[in-house]
Structure formats: structure tokens, C-alpha cells
């Protein structure tokens, strides 16, 4: 495979996998918490939270990228603080690409997990309580296993979205080979240079394969989940 892809192309694939993995791992717990808050929370501003979570899905990705730049850029609210106190730069780094991927994939994750949370029969949690299980145990033994399939599907969708993210990423962290040039950015870059079509095509094929595999896994998991949760 390394022979088939040039080092630059291989780098883009590898970087994309790294960016998407980090994005998924760090955003998943937050997505679970937000999904619970939206599904079960009764607090002021719940509707607002719902809108904010869905924003990246509706807004042009460029707008999201620009917003990220405003917040995390060297002169941004959070960015300046991080740089002054910790010397951390996010904009134009692969970590920035991960943040962009995480934010763009977040609504998809939350939607999938929220559906699973809403489908849980809360009477079962009550039954677990009468059998002596406290809150954390009820989550570990009842709620967790019942929403696990939804969480897995959400994670796969989020991962696929982070892999595919282009607009917000290129706006926020640009297109630096080896640092922020993920698969879609690399395809875009190859298409800008004469004779880059072939390389672009190879990366397109890889993108398609990753997307199809992700979709197939999420489909398989949701079917397996339906069987398991209903007890078949």
C-alpha cells in the first residue's frame, strides 16, 4: 500500500485517521452528556443548547471555521489565553483540525445517542433502583448497555464526519501538508496542480472505502443492537 501511495498521500491518510480518532475520542463523552441533557434534562435554555449543537449541521462550514478562528485563533478569546498561559497554539495545527472535525461531527453524534437515550424505558431504571442499584450502577448495568448501540453508531458517524470535514478545517487550520492536510484537503490540493488528478483519484477511492465501511459498520451495529436490546 505504501508503494501505491506516495509519502505525501500516505501522510494525508494517516493524518486524517489521527485527526478523526482524536476528535471522536474526546467529543464522545461530551456528546453522551449533551444527549442526556437534551433527552432528559429539564433546565432553562435546553432549547438553546439544542440549537447550538445543531448549528454546525446547518451553517456553511466556512462560517463554523471562521467562528473557530475567532475563538481559538492566536487573537481569539480562548486561543490567546491558551497561548499566553500554556504556549499552546491550536490554529494551523493538527489539533485544530481535530477540533474542527469534532465540532462538525458533534450534531450527528448527539442525534444518534439522543435517540438511544429517549428509547430507554425509564421504568427499567426504577426497577433497578428497587433492586438496590444506585445511580452509577443503574447506568453501568441498565442504561449504559441499552444505549451502547446508539453510542457506537454515533461514534462511527462522528468519526466519518471528522474524516470528511473540509470547509471548516481549511478555514480554521489551512492546508499544511503533514500538519493539517487531511484527506479532503489533500484531494483539493492535488486538484489545484496540473497532473494531480491521479493522486486525487487514489485518495477519493480511499475516502469512498472508508465511508462505505463506516456506514456498513454502523448499519450492522444498529441491527445487532435492535436484536440485543429487544432480547433476541
Amino acid at each position, binding site marked *: 500500500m505504501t508503494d501505491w501511495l506516495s509519502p505525501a498521500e500516505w501522510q494525508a491518510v494517516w493524518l486524517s485517521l489521527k485527526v478523526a480518532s482524536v476528535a471522536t475520542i474526546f467529543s464522545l463523552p461530551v456528546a453522551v452528556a449533551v444527549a442526556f441533557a437534551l433527552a432528559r434534562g429539564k433546565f432553562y435554555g435546553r432549547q438553546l443548547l439544542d440549537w447550538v449543537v445543531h448549528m454546525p449541521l446547518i451553517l456553511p462550514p466556512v462560517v463554523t471555521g471562521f467562528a473557530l478562528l475567532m475563538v481559538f485563533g492566536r487573537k481569539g478569546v480562548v486561543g490567546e489565553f491558551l497561548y499566553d498561559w500554556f504556549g499552546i497554539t491550536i490554529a494551523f495545527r493538527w489539533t485544530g483540525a481535530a477540533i474542527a472535525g469534532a465540532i462538525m461531527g458533534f450534531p450527528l453524534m448527539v442525534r444518534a445517542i439522543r435517540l438511544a437515550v429517549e428509547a430507554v424505558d425509564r421504568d*427499567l431504571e426504577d426497577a433497578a433502583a*428497587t433492586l438496590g442499584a444506585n445511580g452509577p450502577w443503574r447506568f453501568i*448495568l441498565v442504561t449504559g448497555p441499552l444505549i451502547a448501540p446508539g453510542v457506537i453508531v454515533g461514534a462511527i458517524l462522528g468519526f466519518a464526519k471528522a474524516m470528511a470535514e473540509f470547509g471548516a478545517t481549511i478555514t480554521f487550520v489551512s492546508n499544511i501538508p503533514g500538519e493539517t492536510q487531511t484527506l479532503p484537503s489533500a484531494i483539493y490540493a492535488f486538484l489545484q496542480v496540473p497532473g494531480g488528478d491521479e493522486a486525487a483519484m487514489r485518495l477519493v477511492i480511499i475516502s469512498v472505502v472508508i465511508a462505505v465501511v463506516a456506514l456498513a459498520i454502523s448499519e450492522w451495529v444498529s441491527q445487532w443492537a435492535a436484536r440485543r436490546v429487544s432480547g433476541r
Partner: protein
Amino acid sequence: MSVEVDLKGSFGDFTLDVSFDAPSGCISLFGRSGAGKTTIAQSIAGLRKVKQGRIVVDGDVLLDTTGGANTAPHQRNIGVVFQEARLFPHYDVTANLNFASRFLGGRTPQLSFDETVDLLDLQPLLKRRPRDLSGGEKQRVAIGRALLSAPRLLVLDEPLTGLDGARREQILQALERLRDRAALPMIHISHSVSEVALLADTLVLLANGSVEHSGAARDIFANPDLAGMLGAEEAGAVLNGTVSRNDNAVTAIDVGGHELQLGKMDAPHGTKVRLRIKASDVILATAKPTGLSAQNILSTVVDQVIERPDGEVMVSLRLGDERLLARVTKRAAVALELKPDTVAYAIIKFTSLPRAYVVERD
């Protein structure tokens, strides 16, 4: 062991104001749907927020809204069998039964796992998933699961709803055995008179969110004044007896020194049984009848004669220490000149003592 419940407050569109206490044994909460039975059960288990109330089980204050006590449901140690079983769909029957085992904290269930499986006949189900169980099977597993949590009190919320006759009978008998063998106090919620008649030691009659009457089940069933609460068709006394003879096709039951004969039961001599005899199944005579096909003619003393608003008359009869209830028309009551402390012969047809009314208690 005792239970003290005092609840006030509005839940949705109806108001609850109940107060009852009971010694050990089985407390049955009886009432139509909408009487507040399930709300009471959920409050006792701690699954519902109560604005004003007090719940004491076995001297342990679980809830006292004035004193601020409110034990979390998982610390109440009250087993609940819900109307819809509520088995965990992602676990098989064995895992459902063992669910509470990790939270016992040194307590030992009244019955071991094997004894529970035996009592409820769960052996063939152990490997199955809840989805593959019938309604009755689910309910049996739910009872077993609650039992294995070593509860100090078992709350049964209409556990037999939606089950067919044979299954009901089987579960009822299991519950009876539980109450008597494991000495497990129960709060049993039901709208079925026959269920209550077999299980209740203490009976709490509920209507529109408040207690209409409460007391020893035997007294309530024999009280002609309260017959209306149960419905004229369902009214009838509950008698305790002992199997005194078991030969040929007849089983004789000794009730307060009198013998009642019924169809052959598979119960050895000395077995204690509870009989419910519907008031409408009892015929009265003032002279001892002869030449009757009915086998059970009991000499009783009239205790009370109560005329009901619908024109029928409820007569309570003393039979030794036991009571019997008979329903007659007003015209018959006048013709027979039924008065307290006169002798009356109660005639009960052999066939009006169906097996379903008999539960073996050992």
C-alpha cells in the same frame, strides 16, 4: 414487622389522602383503577415524589416530609413486582434473577437462588431472554428477581393482571407459600376480589384516592355493610378450615367444628385451607331441610341482616368463630323472618365450591 403509610398530595389530576397501618402478613390494597393504588405502591418504593407523607416499615422511617427523611429507593430494601414485570431485556433470566445479588451487602435472601427457582418453577426458563417469555413466565421471573434482593417488604402491583386462570392460580399459590413459608410481609395491590380473598390478612379498601375502610380481611369480607364495596356479585365470606377427611371423590374441610364437603383435593389430612364462599352461592332455610341434593347444610346463627339500596338483603351468619355471608331477596328475608340470633340453615351446593376458591396452606 409492621407497615405504616400516610400520604397526602395531588398527583396529576387526582388527590390522594390515605392513611393505614398494618401488622405483619399480607396487606391488600383493593380498589378500582384510578383509586390511587399504584401511586401508593410507587410512593412506598420511593419512585414517586411525595409532598406530604410518612412511611414507616418495620420501625424504620423511610419518608417523613415534616422531618426531612426520605430514603433513596435503592436503600429502601423494598422489593417491587410491577404490573408489567419490567425485566431487563438485555439480560437472560438467570442474570435478571441475580441482578440484586451484587447489592445485598451481607443480607441473605429469605430463599436461596435454587429455592426461588424451585418455588416459582423457573428451571426451564433460566437461559431464556425476557422477550421469549409469556406474560405469566415474565411475572414469575419478576417475583423471583424481587425475592432475591432480600426485601423486608414485597410490594406487588397487580401482579396477575392479564394472566389466564391457570397461570393466575399457580402464581397465587406461589405467593401464598411465600407469605407463609418465607414469612415475607407483602403489600398486594389488586382489583380482583378472589385474589384479595386468598392473600389478604389486612384489607384496605380504596376509592377516589382515600381509604374507605381498613381492617382484618376476614372481618371485612364477613361484614354485610361493606359487601357493596366489593360488588354484590363478588361479596362473600372467607373461611379458614382444615382438611379433615379425604376419601373417594370427596374432601371434607373442618370449619369451626362444621364439615364442608367439596370435590377431591390433592391435599393431605391437616392441610389448612382458605375458602371463599360467595354470598350469592348460599341459600338460607329456617328449618333443617331434608331430601336435598346439596351436601353442605350448616346450622348457623343469624348475626346481622342488612338491607342494601338495591333491595337485596345481606345476611351475616355465625358458624363457630367463623362468619358466612348470604345474599337473599328482600321478599325472602321477610318471609323467613330472619332476625339476629335466630337459627338459620345455610345450604351450599357442592359445586359452588369450585377448586379455585381453595388454596392449600401448610
